[in-house]
C-alpha cells in the first residue's frame, strides 16, 4: 500500500428503510470525523444513478481512493458500487459495504438510539477495513458451452430444448427409466383442458431426436466438484438389462413375465410386470428390467423374457455404468413428489379403501389409466354417485406443511368438472379452506365449474371421516364456516387433494451441489425477486417445482428463465470470479505442510520445501491462513490485517 488512503463514506437513506429509524444528520456528522475519511455524504437512494454520481464525482474531484457505502447487505448492492469504482478507474476491490439495513435498522426498528450506535460502529469498522484494502484484479475463468440438467420432467425438458436449440450441448440426467416426469401422469391440465400427454410427448420426442441433447435415463448424479466453467460430474447409470438400440417395443417380454408388482405410474392402482415400459409414449421407447423384482437375472431362475426376445435385446450381464461429464453450468429441475397422506394417517387414508388421493383420481380419469377412464370405488369397483374433495391435505397446516401448494384448488376444480362432464348425475362437493384461483383464466374456470357444471363448494376444513364397515360408505364431518354450522354427510368416495413436497432426492442433490434450501426443503433462489432462478453458487440454476410449488406454465416459464440464465453465463466464453484466492509469502513459509492437509480443494502442494498455491483451485475460504504457524498465508480481501482492524474498531468507543 503505497498511497495514503482517502476514504469517501456514502450513507444511504434507502427511502425510510434506514432514515426512518436513524438520524442521518448525526450519522453523517460522525462519519465525517473518522480517520482517513475525506468526504461523507448522504442520499435518499445511493444505488440510484444520482447516488452513484455522487461517488463518481468525488473520485475525480476529492481524489478519494477508497469507498464505503453504508446501506443494505453486500449481497444486494456490492456489485453495483464495485462497478462504479471500476468505471471510474479504481480497483473495484477498494470498496466496502457497511450493512446498516438488514443487520441494523430492520432488526432494531424500535430502538433508534441503539440503531444509530450500531451504524456508527459498523461504519467505523468498515472505514478501518477500507483503509487496508488492497488492489485486486478480477479472475477470469474460461467457460465452455455444456450444460447439465438434472431432472427430465417438463421443466428439465423445456430448459434442455431451449439450450440445445441455442446451440449449447445439453446432458439431461433423469433418475427414472423415461423422461416426462409428473406431467406424464396427468390426464388433462387446467384451465385449458389440454390433454397433458398430447402436449408433453412431442417435447419428449424432440429431446430424443435433438443432436445437441445427450440423454441419460435411469441415471443419477452422484458427485459434482468444481465451479462454473469447470464442473466435474459423476453420473451413475443403472442397468436396464435391455439394449435400447435393439429393443423394438414388441411387448413379448412383458406378456411372458410371471412377476407382477404395483405400477407406480398408475399410482399403484394397477399391476405391471418386472420387465416393462413405464407408459406407451416413454422416451427412450425401451423396456426396462426391474432387477429388484425380477426372479433372478439368470436363465436358471426364470429367463422367460430372454427366450421370447427376437431381437436379442435383453442382456442379463449389463452392469451399472459410471459416466464422467465435464460441464460449464448446471440446472437443477428435480421436481416434486405428491404429499403422502400415509405420513400422518390423514383422514384414514390407507385404512379406508374409498379414501383416495387426487393423483389416484387423475389416473382413473385417464383413458389409458388403470380403469380405462372409468371412475370407480376401490372397495367394490362400483361407480360412485357422491364424491367429496378434501382440500389442503399436506398444505397450509402446522402439522404437515405451512405453505400453499398452489395447484390443488385448480386441479380439484378441474377433476370435478371432468367428473361432471362424464356423469352429470353424480354429486361432487369440494370442501375448501379458500379457493385460490389466481392465474390467468383460473377464476373464470372456477366460476364455470360452479355455475355451468353444478360442482358444489362448501367452505370448511374436514375434521374427520368415518367409515361404514359393511358398505364402505364414508361419513364426512366438517364445519361449514360460512354458515357456522356443523355438517355431517354421507358420501361414496373421498378424494384428498394432496399438496406438493420436494422430491425425495432433493436433500441428497442439495448436499452434492452444496446449494441451500429453505426450511420447507425447496431449493433457495439467490434473491427471491431479482434472481429467482439463480442459486448462491455461480453456474448452478434452479427451475420448476424443485424451487417451490407451481403449475405447469410457471414451471416452464422458470425453466426458460434458467436456460437463458445458463446461456448468458456460457455465451461470452469467459466468466469473471472474485479474486479471493490466497497468496503465500515464500520468504516466511517454513514448508511445514499444515496448509496442505487443511485445504479441501487440494490447491496447495509442497515444492522445494515451500508451500505452493494453485490460484485456479483455491476458493478463498482462508482455512489455511488461520492455521499457518508462520503467518505466511494471506487470503485476498480477508487478510489478517483487515480483519484485525475491524476487531479493534468493533469494541473501541
Amino acid at each position: 500500500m503505497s498511497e495514503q488512503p482517502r476514504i469517501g463514506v456514502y450513507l444511504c437513506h434507502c427511502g425510510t428503510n434506514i432514515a426512518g429509524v436513524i438520524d442521518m444528520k448525526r450519522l453523517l456528522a460522525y462519519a465525517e470525523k473518522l480517520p482517513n475519511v475525506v468526504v461523507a455524504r448522504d442520499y435518499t437512494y445511493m444505488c440510484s444513478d444520482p447516488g452513484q454520481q455522487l461517488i463518481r464525482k468525488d473520485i475525480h474531484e476529492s481524489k478519494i481512493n477508497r469507498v464505503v457505502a453504508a446501506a443494505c447487505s453486500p449481497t444486494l448492492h456490492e456489485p453495483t458500487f464495485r462497478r462504479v469504482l471500476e468505471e471510474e478507474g479504481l480497483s473495484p476491490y477498494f470498496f466496502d459495504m457497511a450493512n446498516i439495513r438488514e443487520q441494523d435498522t430492520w432488526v432494531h426498528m424500535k430502538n433508534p438510539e441503539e440503531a444509530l450506535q450500531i451504524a456508527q460502529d459498523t461504519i467505523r469498522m468498515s472505514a478501518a477495513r477500507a483503509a487496508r484494502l488492497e488492489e485486486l484484479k478480477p479472475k477470469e475463468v474460461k467457460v465452455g458451452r455444456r450444460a447439465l440438467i438434472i431432472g427430465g420432467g417438463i421443466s428439465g425438458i423445456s430448459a434442455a430444448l431451449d439450450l440445445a436449440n441455442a446451440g449449447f450441448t445439453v446432458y439431461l440426467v433423469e433418475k427414472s427409466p423415461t423422461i416426462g416426469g409428473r406431467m406424464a401422469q396427468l390426464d388433462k391440465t387446467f384451465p385449458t383442458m389440454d390433454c397433458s400427454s398430447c402436449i408433453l410427448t412431442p417435447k419428449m420426442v424432440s429431446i430424443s431426436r435433438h443432436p445437441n441433447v445427450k440423454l441419460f435415463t435411469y441415471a443419477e448424479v452422484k458427485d459434482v466438484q468444481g465451479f462454473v466453467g469447470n464442473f466435474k460430474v459423476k453420473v451413475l447409470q443403472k442397468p436396464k438389462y435391455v439394449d435400447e438400440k435393439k429393443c423394438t417395443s414388441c411387448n413379448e417380454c412383458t406378456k411372458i413375465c410371471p412377476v407382477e408388482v404395483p405400477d407406480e405410474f398408475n399410482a399403484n392402482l394397477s399391476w405391471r410386470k418386472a420387465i416393462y415400459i413405464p407408459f406407451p409414449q416413454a422416451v427412450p421407447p425401451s423396456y426396462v428390467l426391474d432387477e429388484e423384482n425380477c426372479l433372478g437375472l439368470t436363465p436358471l431362475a426364470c429367463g422367460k423374457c430372454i427366450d421370447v426376445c427376437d431381437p436379442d435385446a435383453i442382456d442379463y450381464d449389463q452392469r451399472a455404468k459410471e459416466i464422467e461429464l465435464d460441464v460449464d453450468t448446471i440446472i437443477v429441475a428435480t421436481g416434486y413428489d405428491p404429499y403422502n397422506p400415509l405420513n400422518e394417517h390423514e383422514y384414514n387414508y390407507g385404512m379406508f379403501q374409498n379414501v383416495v388421493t387426487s393423483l389416484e383420481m387423475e389416473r382413473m380419469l385417464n383413458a389409458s389409466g388403470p380403469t380405462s377412464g372409468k371412475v370407480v370405488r376401490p372397495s367394490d369397483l362400483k361407480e360412485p354417485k357422491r364424491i367429496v374433495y378434501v382440500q389442503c391435505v399436506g398444505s397450509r397446516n402446522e402439522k404437515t406443511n405451512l405453505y400453499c401448494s398452489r395447484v390443488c384448488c385448480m386441479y380439484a376444480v378441474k377433476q370435478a368438472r371432468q367428473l361432471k362432464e362424464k356423469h352429470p348425475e353424480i354429486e361432487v362437493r369440494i370442501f375448501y379452506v379458500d379457493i385460490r384461483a389466481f392465474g390467468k383464466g383460473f377464476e373464470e374456470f372456477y366460476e364455470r365449474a360452479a355455475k355451468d357444471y353444478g360442482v358444489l363448494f362448501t367452505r370448511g376444513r374436514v375434521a374427520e371421516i368415518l367409515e361404514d364397515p359393511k358398505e364402505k360408505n364414508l361419513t364426512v364431518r366438517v364445519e361449514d364456516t360460512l354458515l357456522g354450522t356443523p355438517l355431517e354427510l354421507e358420501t361414496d368416495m373421498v378424494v384428498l387433494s394432496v399438496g406438493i413436497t420436494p422430491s425425495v432426492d432433493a436433500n441428497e442433490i442439495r448436499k452434492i451441489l452444496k446449494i441451500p434450501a429453505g426450511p420447507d426443503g425447496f431449493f433457495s433462489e439467490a434473491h427471491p425477486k431479482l434472481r429467482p432462478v439463480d442459486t448462491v453458487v455461480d453456474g448452478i440454476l434452479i427451475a420448476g417445482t424443485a424451487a417451490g410449488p407451481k403449475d405447469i406454465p410457471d414451471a416452464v416459464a422458470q425453466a426458460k428463465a434458467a436456460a437463458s440464465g445458463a446461456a448468458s453465463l456460457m455465451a461470452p466464453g469467459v466468466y469473471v470470479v472474485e479474486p479471493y484466492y490466497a497468496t503465500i509469502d515464500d520468504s516466511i513459509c517454513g514448508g511445514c505442510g499444515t496448509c496442505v492437509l487443511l485445504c479441501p480443494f487440494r490447491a496447495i502442494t509442497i515444492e522445494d520445501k515451500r508451500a505452493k498455491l494453485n490460484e485456479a483451485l483455491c476458493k478463498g475460504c482462508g482455512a489455511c491462513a488461520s492455521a499457518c504457524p508462520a503467518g505466511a498465508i494471506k487470503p485476498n480481501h480477508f487478510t489478517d490485517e483487515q480483519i484485525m482492524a475491524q476487531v479493534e474498531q468493533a469494541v473501541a468507543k
Partner: protein
Amino acid sequence: MIDMSSKFEPQILGFLCNWCSYAGADLAGTGRTQYSPNLRIIRVMCSGRVDPTFILAAMKNGADGVLIAGCHPPSDCHYLTGNLKARRRYHLLLKLLDQLGIERERVRLEWVSASEGERFAKIVDEFTEQIRTMGPNPLKSS
C-alpha cells in the same frame, strides 16, 4: 469506580460466514425479526477463516463475548469442511481460555443456515442475556 453492573450492556462481536450465517442474519432483517442491539458483525468467507488470535484480540480489546457462526455440519459448508475446522479450533481455544482465566462461556460457536433468520435472532438474544448475567469481560478492568 462507580458500580456499573446495573447498567452493564454486553459488547459482543460476531464472526459470520458469508454463505450461511451472514445470509441468516440478513434474513432476520428481511423478516424484521427484532433482536438485542449488542452484536457487531464481521463477515468472513468461512467460519474456518476465524483465526483463534482474532478472538483473543477481541477479548483483549474488551469484547464481553464472541460469537462464531457457520454452516451446519456435516455438509452445509460452502468449502466442504471449513465448519468442521472451526469446530476443532474452537474446542482447542476453550482450553486456552481456561488457562488465561477467561470464562469459556464467553466464546460461543453456533450453526446458522441461510434460512434460519429467526434462529439467528434467538441465538443473539440468548447469548446477550447470558453474557449480561456473567458481567463484563474480566480483562477489561485489569
